[in-house]
C-alpha cells in the first residue's frame, strides 16, 4: 500500500463533513471518488495531503503523515485544484515550474526546467510555454495545472473534479492521459468526479460517498448499482454494459 487511511474524521466548526473514513491505495491505481454534492468528496481529497487537518491516521508509504513535514508530503503527493487561479501575470512555464518547489525551494536548476518542459510536452502545452497562463482557455489551464502536478514527480496525484470545466472531447482526452500516466509511470491517482459514466469507464476502483461516509467501494460494476445510486443520489437509473464497461442511464429523480 502506498496510502492507508484509518478513521478519517473532519469537522467544520462542530459539523462533521467526514466521519470515520477508511481507505487504501495501491501503486498504479486510478480511483474515482463519486457522490452527490456535499458528500465530502473534495474534503476527503484535501485531507489526504493535509491541506485540511483531519483526525484519524494517514500513512503515506510507511510514514505517519501527521509526523511528516509539509515539504516531505509534497514530494509524495501532488494536488490539482478544482478552480486553478492566478491573479497575476505568470507564464505557463513558470506555472509548471512551481511543481518543482518541493525539490528546489528558491532557484530552479536546468534539471528542474527540463522536467517542467517534459511534462508540458506530455500534456501538449509546449507551444504556450511563454504565454501568460491567464490568457489560456479553461481546458488549457487545466492541462497546465496537471503538467505542474506531473513535474512535481510524486507517487500520488490528487485531482478535485478535473473534468468540470471541460467539454466532452477534453474530458475524454484528459482521462486517457491520466490512465496513461498511471500505467506508464506507476503513479496512483485519486480524483473527485461528478460524471459517473466517465469515472466508471476509466477507473480501476470507485468510492461512493454520501454524507461524509463511504457507502460503497470496489470495481465500477459493483458500485454503480441501482440500489447504491438510489441511496446516494435519490435518482432512479438503468445500468447497462457497453464495451465491457458499466454505464448508467438516469431515468428520474425520486
Amino acid at each position, binding site marked *: 500500500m502506498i496510502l492507508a487511511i484509518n478513521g478519517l474524521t473532519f469537522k467544520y466548526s462542530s459539523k462533521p463533513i467526514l466521519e470515520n473514513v477508511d481507505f487504501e491505495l495501491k501503486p498504479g491505481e486510478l480511483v474515482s471518488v463519486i457522490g452527490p454534492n456535499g458528500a465530502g468528496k473534495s474534503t476527503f481529497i484535501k485531507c489526504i495531503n493535509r491541506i485540511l487537518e483531519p483526525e484519524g491516521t494517514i500513512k503515506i508509504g510507511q510514514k505517519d503523515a501527521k509526523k511528516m513535514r509539509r515539504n516531505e508530503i509534497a514530494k509524495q503527493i501532488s494536488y490539482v485544484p478544482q478552480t486553478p487561479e492566478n491573479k*497575476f501575470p505568470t507564464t505557463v512555464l513558470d506555472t509548471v515550474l512551481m511543481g518543482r518547489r518541493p525539490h528546489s525551494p528558491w532557484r530552479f536548476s536546468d534539471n528542474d526546467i527540463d522536467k517542467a518542459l517534459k511534462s508540458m510536452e506530455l*500534456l*501538449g502545452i509546449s*507551444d504556450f510555454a511563454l504565454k501568460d497562463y491567464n490568457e489560456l482557455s479553461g481546458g488549457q489551464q487545466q492541462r497546465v495545472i496537471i503538467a505542474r502536478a506531473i513535474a*512535481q514527480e510524486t507517487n500520488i496525484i490528487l485531482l478535485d473534479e478535473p473534468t468540470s470545466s471541460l467539454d466532452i472531447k477534453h474530458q475524454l482526452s484528459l482521462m486517457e492521459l491520466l490512465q496513461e500516466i498511471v500505467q506508464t509511470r506507476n503513479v496512483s491517482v485519486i480524483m473527485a468526479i461528478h460524471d459517473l459514466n466517465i469515472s466508471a469507464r476509466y477507473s480501476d476502483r470507485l468510492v461512493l460517498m454520501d454524507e461524509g461516509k463511504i457507502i460503497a467501494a470496489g470495481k465500477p460494476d459493483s458500485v454503480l448499482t441501482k440500489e447504491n445510486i438510489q441511496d446516494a443520489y435519490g435518482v432512479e437509473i438503468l445500468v447497462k454494459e457497453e464495451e465491457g464497461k458499466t454505464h448508467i442511464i438516469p431515468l428520474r429523480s425520486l
Partner: protein
Amino acid sequence: MKKGSSADNCSIKNDYDRLIGRKILFISVLFAAILLIIGISSTIGVIGLSIKEVYLAIFNGIFPNTFEVSDVATRVVLHIRLPRICLGILAGIGLGMSGAVMQGILRNPLASPYTLGISSGAGFGAAIAIVLGAGIAGGEYLVIGNAFIGALICSIVILLLSSKRGTTTESMLLAGIALMYLFSASTALLQYFADDEASKEVTFWLIGSLSYATWDKILAIAIVIAITFPILLWKSNDLNLMVTGDDTAKSMGIDVERTRLILMVLASLLTASIVCFTGTIGFIGLVAPHMTRMIIGGDHRFVLPASALLGGLLLCFADIFAITILEPIILPIGIMTAYMGVPLFLYLILKRQKAYW
C-alpha cells in the same frame, strides 16, 4: 495530447533564459537610474551646482579628502539635498516592496499599505501626538513614535484576523479598508476639535513630506530595509505559490499560515518605519508593484527588487517635480506622487487592459 506540442524544448529554454535576462536587465537599469537621479536631483535648488560637483561632494562624503570640492557644495549636497533625496528613495523602496508583498499575500492588486489602513493608523497616531500632545515617546520622537505604534496596531488587527481559521484574503482586505475609514474618521474628529495650528499640522503630516530628512532617520529606515529585504526575497518563491491559492501552496509544501504571518509582519514593519518619518505617502505602494508586473510579469523573485527600485525612482521623480514645479515653493511629496502616478497608472491599465483586471 502529445500531438499538440511542436515547439522545441531547447529553443523554449533559450527563450526562457532570455526572458529571465530581460528581468535582470530591467532591475539593473532601475538601479543605474537611481544612481543617476541622485546626482541630477542634487543639482536642483537655489544654489546652482554641476553634476560633477555633486558626485565629487558625495564621494568626498564617503571617502573624506579624496577630491577637492568647495565647502558650499559639500554642505549643500551632504547636509541639505542628499538627506532629502535618500529619504525619498529609501521610502519609495520600502513602500514599493511592502506594496508588492501585501498584494501577493492578499492575492489582490488593490492591496497596499494605504488600502490596508496602515498609513491611516500611522496618521491617527501622529494626530494624537500633534493635537493632544500624548504619546509613548517624548521630544522630537513624540509624533514618530505615535505614528509607528498607530501603524503597528492596524497591522496587528489585520494579522489577528488573518490567523483566525477560515479567514479569506478578501475579508482581510475589507477589514483593512474598514480600519482605514475608522482611523481617517478618528483623525478628522481630532482635527475638528483641534485649534487651527494643530489641525494644519495634522493635514500637513497626512499628505506626507520629505522636508524633515536627517541622516538618523535615513539610517533607521536603511536598517529596517536591510533586515526585511533578504527575508522577503527568500520567501518570494513561496509568495508565487500563495498567489495561486492556499490549497495549492500547502500542497507544494508551504506552511501557508506561518509564511503569511512572517511576510505580513515584515511588510507592516517596513511600512510603519517609513510612514512614521515621512507621513502618508500614498500611491507608491499601489502603483510600483503594478507597473513592475506589467513590465516583467508576476514572479515575485524579480517583482520584489524591481518594485522596490521602481518605487524609489518614482518617489525621487515626484520629489523633483515637487521642488521645481512652483519654485521656490516646495509642494508636499504625497500630492505629487498622486498627480504624477494616477495618469501614468491609468495609461498603463488602459494600454494593457487584459493583463490582470
